[in-house]
Every structure is written in structure tokens, then in C-alpha cells.
């Protein structure tokens, strides 16, 4: 069997060549056109990177034909794709390119703007600058044979040491994801899928490959409409909506979720951050023909892991006003672990651990971290998620927060340790701390940084961080204290720092 991620799209291009596969900006791309473009991309990658063994193809693109054909072309050629957000700071982009050493880089207009001299220096690979550079279509060519365990893609997430972690996801994980979701939702060629997630966010893996596995069409949401996509959903008559819950929260707050506003929707999937019950109920009213699912996922488990379907009465996590994260999706085994990876019983709080065919291979070039986060227990690989949960007797899981310093800021994973690592370098001192604050309904609004170095201004810190880490992780406030509070163990007392912020007793530098 060929596990090439481009194979289902290619099969549909033979069976239903004129059917719509992608509608991006003002361009409608049929399955035949998408397959041809992907094949030409693959041929270009193979030619451009001919002197190198298979490896990574960087996709420095977003919401464009080049981005999606680039992803498919990279897969078609037997390489793994790595999405790179063109909005990343120059230094971060150069750092990622230095890590992955791509065999080729595919850029769209936005990507080309990000290709500064510094970024180009970090990338020795050939760069596709225009679709006009692609070789001619070879109708005899087919997606290259790839194995289940070969890497399909790598997505970077925040790393606690200051270096981003590249999560290696094998083809079999995506294969399981799309076929499992096909069984859960019964997707078909008439389904019209949203694509709200950025390519560098793993939700996009679901959007693209589920749509093309079903023979349906993919509709990237223009950036200007992401916050309030009512018109887009209505005009495109979308049947499947997948996004972070912030979309529902925003629309609900603006009273825009009118009853029956989205009659075409039949599946709504919220993931990436906690889903407030109030917003879920408002969305359900607006989309009366849709199931409304809260899905908890992890990049290390290929996008989606557990599901809770909004019911009457709903499954709510007590005292948090959030929809529960539900039960493991088919194929997953879930458990609650203590610190030593011993399974805990119902109603006991511990770390959510997951096993199954969607578990990733580990972190690129980081065997120690892989061994720590992906322990093998009785011959089975588990992923320790870091999520603090408990399981009620009915089998429903509830999310209570994190056991580590990872936070979600508007859906983005941020390791506070990474912010601190850069902060320490900028300040020239280890006496630094970063906390998520304020937190509303389980989602952090931003980061606040603390340091103790006289003469280092908030502007110095913010300017330095803006060059190193994504904008959403840059602290909104930088505060200088005479010393950092410590716990009885001598560690920085982050809880007290948060309490100080809440009581507004911190002196701003």
C-alpha cells in the first residue's frame, strides 16, 4: 500500500477530474488541475534537490495555490513537508531553516517577502519563486511510493529550552486520522470544508487531507474574514467548519450568531483551546443542522485525540464553564498517569497520556526529549501530553490545565520556558520569569515577563524578543522587580507572580 499523503487527491483526480478541489482567493482549482500542479511541483523538487537524499521541503507560504500545491508536491515527491509561517520573525525563520536544511523551499508572494538576506543565508536549498518555473506536466507520473512509518510532515512547536521542537509525524498517523474522521463524520464529495487554520498550525493537516480524502473541496478563509467568517460560510455554503473556539466566542460576543445563520453546516469542529459552553450553545443555535464537537488535540498525536459532542444536557467541566474534552477518538487509548507513568483511577487528577496509530515518531534531533515524552510501556509507545485531566466514571475526560509551563495563547502553544530562555539572554541574567496572564476561560490573553536587571528597559526586552519568537509569545508587559519571589524549594514562585499581577501590586519598571 502507498501511504503517500497526495495519493487520495490523485485518485480523485482520476475519478472526478473536473470536480472542485480548492477554492482560494478568486481561483477555483479542479482535482485534475491540483494533481497536475502537484505533480509539476514534485518534479521541480526532485530536480532541484536531485543531489540530496529525501528530506524536508519547506513551505514558506500561506493561503495560496502555491502553499497547497507545494504541500502536495512535497508529499508526491516522497519528501516530508515543513510549513514555515512567513510572518515569523527573521531570526526565527533563519533558525528553523538552519535546523531542517531543506532540500527545496517553496515560497508564495508572502513567503518571498520574508526571504531577507539573513533568511536566504540560512537556506542553501533551491527556492521556487514562481509557478512559471515549474516543469511541464507529465501525465504518466504518480505519487511516489512511501511507507507508513516514513515522515509525512514536521511541524514546529514552542520548545522550553529556547529552541523550537520539530514534531515528526509519520504517514500512517495522517492515514489513520483522515480515515477515522471519515468514519466518524461520513464525509463525501459534496462536502465543502473550511480552512481557517494557518498551514503551520496542525489543524491544517485535518483541513487539507480530510477534504481531499473525501473528494470534497477546500476553502481557505481569507485572513480578513477569519475573526468573523459569517459571510464566508454563507456564500461558500460550507458544510464543515473547523477552527479555534475564539471564532465562536468573538461572534457570540458581537451577537452575530443569529439562530439559523449557518444552515449549510453539518459538522463543526472546535479545537486548539478550551471551548466555553456559552459560545458552543450559541454556535449550535446558529448552525442547527450541524453537530458541534469539541476536539482536544496534540501535534504529537496528529491533530485530534478526544471528542465531546455537544448534547442536551451538555458535558461540562465543573467550575470552568467549559465543554468537556470527551472520550478518546477511535483508535486511541487514553489513560491518566501519575508522575511515574502509573495509571490512575477514575476521578483522580493526573497527566493525560495517549497511545495509538496517530502518535508521532518524536522530536527531530532530540532523542532525550523524545524518550521523556514518548515512553514505551509494555511495548507500547505513549505520548505524555502534559495536560492535567481526570476521567469521570462515564469515561468522559475533563481538562483542568497543564502540569508544566506550556500555555495556549489564542490557540498557539507557547512554552514559557522558551520565553524565559530568550529573556535570560537578552537580560544577561537567569533571574527572569514569564507567566501567562491574564487567563480567561482557560485561555491566556498574553505573557508577562519579569526581570531584575537595572538598565534593561521594557523596550529592550520586547524589541529583542520580537526578533526571536513569534509575536503572540512576546510579553505584553515587561516588569522589573528588585528580586523574584522564591518558593520554599528555591524555585521561582510563579503562582505568587500571578497573584501579584491580579492584586496589581507589581511596580512597573
Amino acid at each position, binding site marked *: 500500500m502507498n501511504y503517500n499523503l497526495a495519493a487520495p487527491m490523485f485518485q480523485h483526480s482520476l475519478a472526478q477530474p473536473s470536480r472542485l478541489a480548492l477554492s482560494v482567493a478568486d481561483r477555483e482549482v479542479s482535482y485534475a488541475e491540483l494533481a497536475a500542479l502537484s505533480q509539476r511541483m514534485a518534479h521541480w523538487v526532485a530536480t532541484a534537490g536531485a543531489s540530496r537524499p529525501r528530506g524536508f521541503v519547506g513551505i514558506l507560504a500561506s493561503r495560496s495555490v502555491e502553499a497547497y500545491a507545494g504541500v502536495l508536491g512535497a508529499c508526491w515527491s516522497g519528501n516530508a513537508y515543513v510549513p514555515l509561517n512567513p510572518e515569523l520573525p527573521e531570526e526565527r525563520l533563519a533558525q528553523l531553516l538552519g535546523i531542517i536544511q531543506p532540500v527545496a523551499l517553496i515560497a508564495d508572494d508572502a513567503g518571498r517577502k520574508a526571504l531577507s538576506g539573513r533568511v536566504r543565508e540560512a537556506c542553501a536549498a533551491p527556492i521556487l519563486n514562481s509557478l512559471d518555473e515549474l516543469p511541464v506536466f507529465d501525465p504518466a507520473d504518480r505519487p511516489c511510493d512511501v511507507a507508513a512509518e516514513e515522515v509525512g510532515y514536521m511541524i514546529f512547536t514552542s520548545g522550553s529550552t529556547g529552541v523550537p521542537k520539530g514534531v515528526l509525524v509519520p504517514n500512517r498517523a495522517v492515514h489513520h486520522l483522515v480515515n477515522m474522521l471519515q468514519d466518524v463524520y461520513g464525509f463525501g464529495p459534496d462536502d465543502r470544508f473550511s480552512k481557517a487554520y494557518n498551514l503551520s498550525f496542525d489543524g491544517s493537516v485535518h483541513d487539507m487531507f480530510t477534504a481531499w480524502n473525501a473528494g470534497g473541496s477546500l476553502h481557505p478563509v481569507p485572513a480578513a*474574514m477569519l475573526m*468573523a467568517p*459569517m459571510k464566508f460560510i454563507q456564500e461558500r455554503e460550507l458544510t464543515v467548519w473547523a477552527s479555534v473556539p475564539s471564532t465562536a466566542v468573538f461572534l457570540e*460576543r*458581537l451577537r*452575530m450568531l443569529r439562530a439559523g445563520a449557518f444552515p449549510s453546516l453539518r459538522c463543526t469542529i472546535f479545537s486548539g483551546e478550551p471551548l466555553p459552553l456559552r459560545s458552543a450553545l450559541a454556535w449550535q443555535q446558529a448552525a442547527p443542522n450541524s453537530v458541534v464537537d469539541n476536539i482536544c488535540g496534540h501535534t504529537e498525536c496528529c491533530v485530534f485525540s478526544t471528542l465531546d459532542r455537544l448534547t442536551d444536557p451538555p458535558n461540562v467541566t465543573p467550575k470552568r464553564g467549559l465543554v468537556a474534552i470527551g472520550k478518546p477518538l477511535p483508535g486511541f487509548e487514553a489513560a491518566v498517569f501519575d508522575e511515574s507513568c502509573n495509571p490512575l483511577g477514575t476521578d483522580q487528577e493526573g497527566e493525560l497520556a495517549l497511545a495509538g496509530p496517530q502518535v508521532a515518531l518524536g522530536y527531530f534531533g532530540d532523542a532525550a526529549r523524545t524518550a521523556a515524552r514518548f515512553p514505551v510501556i509494555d511495548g507500547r509507545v505513549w505520548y505524555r501530553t502534559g495536560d492535567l485531566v481526570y476521567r469521570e466514571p462515564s469515561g468522559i475526560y475533563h481538562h483542568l490545565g497543564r502540569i508544566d509551563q506550556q500555555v495556549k495563547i489564542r490557540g498557539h502553544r507557547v512554552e514559557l520556558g522558551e520565553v524565559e530562555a530568550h529573556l535570560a539572554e537578552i537580560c544577561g541574567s537567569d533571574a527572569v520569569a514569564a507567566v501567562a496572564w491574564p487567563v480567561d476561560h482557560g485561555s491566556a490573553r498574553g505573557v508577562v515577563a519579569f526581570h531584575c536587571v537595572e538598565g534593561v528597559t521594557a523596550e529592550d526586552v520586547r524589541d529583542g524578543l520580537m526578533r526571536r519568537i513569534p509575536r503572540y509569545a512576546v510579553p*505584553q508587559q515587561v516588569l522589573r522587580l528588585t528580586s523574584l519571589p522564591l518558593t520554599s524549594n528555591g524555585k521561582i514562585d510563579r503562582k505568587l507572580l500571578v497573584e501579584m499581577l491580579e492584586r496589581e501590586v507589581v511596580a512597573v519598571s
Partner: protein
Amino acid sequence: MNERLAIREYLQNLLRQTGDRNGFADNDSLLMSGRLDSVDTLDLVVFLEEKYGIDFAARGFDKNDLDSLDGIMALIGATPPGVSL
């Protein structure tokens, strides 16, 4: 206070809360450029609803309309008669 100045002051305050102390021209992009995020946008929408009576639920929401000070002024100017500014 002049409406343009009042809104400029409000936007400056929003930016300040994000740690952004840089100035901005009347036609500078604030939302699409990422200087203000979704939560800031929500704050701005609530401000415009409360202070200027703009009903986004009725007129619809387009991020481009709020992207710059000029855009916001045009939006306020386009508010239907009967809404006192």
C-alpha cells in the same frame, strides 16, 4: 474632543496595553498587520458600539473597516441617520 483625536487616543491606549509604543499614521494598518490582535479588536468593537452606537450585528463585521484610523472614521461617517455621534 474631536472624534478623530478621541479614537486615536483609544487606539494608542490599546497599542500601549500590548507594549507597542510606536506611533501610527491615520492610514496605517493596525489589525491586518498584527499590531492589534483579536482580543484588542473585540475591545475596539465594543468601544465603537457603546460610544457611537454602531450595531455590528446588524451591519456585519469586516476587519478591513477597522484596520486603520481612516477606516474607522469612514465607518462612523457611514453610520445611518438617527444615531447621534
